[in-house]
């Protein structure tokens, strides 16, 4: 209880994200037989109107009744084995996936650190910086002001003038570094990072972790999905552990990670 008294003295924490009994369900067409044969498709159309299972639409219940409250100034790690619903949960918080049941309340517009989809391999790095910035909702002036910073941070030009070459000519590491640099250039209220720290060489990883700590100071709340327990330990103070779409544990990083490592047998 000592913790709570401390909290009160520091002023009541301000919630930024509230998840209330959140359920997310994916629907996959023609996955019943696993073959997607013509007859299966036909019967699906004929049975339109009857329930989903009869039509061969398979439901994947990815998040099952998750509830939590995140507060301003927190960095929250999300852990769990593959397919436990971590990325899905982040997308739902960002408002990118509609909830089947339950609700997510947020302060402002949470953003997912994922600009990859807007970038085009056939364009030069230079144009991708601008396109990616615009896609994240930055203004032209903001991008111009930060352009040099983005390029320097990515280190693309360390080995010659690569920023004016099409992105398809980049090595996978270089492309990943540029993507992270573009994504991290914007300030966010609630920021969500999905496995972003695994990119680049060790030097770049250090720089990324530093940038995430900065973003957290600017942002209200940071969510981080990672399979790297060390980067969770280095950046987060609270951890949510998801397993099979359910929230299994919610608490301080050390306690949850200890249980998680016991669970995974590490």
């Amino acid at each position, binding site marked *: 209880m000592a913790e709570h008294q401390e909290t009160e003295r520091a002023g009541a924490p301000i919630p930024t994200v509230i998840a209330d009994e959140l359920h997310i369900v994916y629907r996959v067409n023609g996955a019943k037989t696993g073959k997607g044969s013509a007859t299966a498709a036909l019967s699906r159309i004929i049975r339109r109107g009857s329930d989903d299972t009869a039509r061969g639409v398979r439901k994947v219940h990815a998040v099952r009744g998750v509830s939590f*409250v995140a507060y301003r*100034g927190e960095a929250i790690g999300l852990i769990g084995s593959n397919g436990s619903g971590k990325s899905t949960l982040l997308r739902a918080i960002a*408002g990118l996936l509609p909830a089947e049941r339950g609700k997510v*309340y947020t302060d402002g517009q949470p953003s997912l650190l994922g600009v990859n989809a807007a970038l*085009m391999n056939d364009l030069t790095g230079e144009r991708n910086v601008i396109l990616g910035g615009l*896609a994240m909702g930055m203004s032209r002036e903001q991008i111009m002001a930060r352009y040099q910073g983005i390029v320097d941070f990515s280190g693309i030009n360390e080995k010659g003038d690569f920023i004016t070459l099409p992105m398809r000519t980049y090595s996978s590491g270089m492309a990943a570094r540029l993507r992270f640099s573009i994504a991290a250039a914007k300030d966010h209220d609630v920021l969500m990072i999905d496995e972003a720290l695994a990119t680049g060489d060790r030097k770049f990883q250090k720089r990324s972790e530093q940038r995430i700590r900065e973003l957290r100071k600017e942002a209200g709340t940071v969510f981080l999905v990672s399979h790297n327990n060390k980067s969770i330990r*280095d950046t987060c*103070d609270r951890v949510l552990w998801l397993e099979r779409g359910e929230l299994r544990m919610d608490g*301080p990083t050390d306690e949850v990670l200890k249980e998680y490592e016991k669970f995974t047998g590490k």
Partner: protein
Amino acid sequence: MSCPHPLRIPKTKVFPLVSETTHDGTVALGTPVSPDDGLTSAQLADRYGLSVSGARPSLVEYVRQLWDRRHFILAFSRAKLTAQYSQAKLGQLWQVATPLLNAAVYFFIFGLILKADRGMSRDVYIPFLVTGVFVFTFTQSSVMAGVRAISGNLGLVRALHFPRASLPISFSLQQLQQLLFSMIVLFAVAIGFGSIPDLSWLLIVPVLALQFLFNTGLALIMARAGAKTPDLAQLMPFVMRTWMYASGVMFSIPIMLEDKPGWVADILQVNPASIYMDLMRFALIEGYSADNLPDHVWALAGGWALLLAAGGFVYFWKAEERYGRG
């Protein structure tokens, strides 16, 4: 732990790992904080002014958000246009070469082999045909890009937050820019067959503007339909081809249908594709007089554009929060 500033450590909660467990909403809150204790999530959200994530904005707010993204919409359409030919050796030259080759193929088949130029001199028919092909292609490719605007860009829709209408609008903007390249070819053909640029060429601007509005509306409708039923991408080429043959792209409707009842030609002539083609031909081609246009042609052109643009926009907006599911 290397936390830069002191942080509140939440009390650890452990939940049993049983499928379909339902937790009581208030119990599962991460940190019970005394002044807020006992509040439901909705009350807590209300107290701190949080809003439901991913809810659909009002129509006015939606238009404002879209306006804020205008630079993105333009940059995205131009990037798509450039990326299209970036691997080719001739590069952006294909922007002009592709429509030129298209026109040549249609001329070979319909002008030389099928002789569809009934009732027109060659000086009229060739620009007539090329205009028809280009103007119809503008609508056709906007529709096809519209169908795949959401379903083909799910990655983008699921990763970033922006008004989804940006995508279909951006794609029809890309087609407009493509058409502007084709216009270079079209001007050359028109001049080559004896039409001299005069004041009537200025009519091209309103015609293109209205057709662009029409196409964007259609692309918005197709984007919503295609997001729900991706199969439309397979079906639409056939619909579009039927529409093309029915709109008089390579023949004059009144002349071809002389022996049929008059209402058939009337219906075909008031269809929007045929109206925008005829207006463009009227503006460009010396020997294509106003006699070839149906009555109230400008009202029809404006009406179609307004109906589709406004209707398509509202129709698309109504499903805004559902794009990207599943």
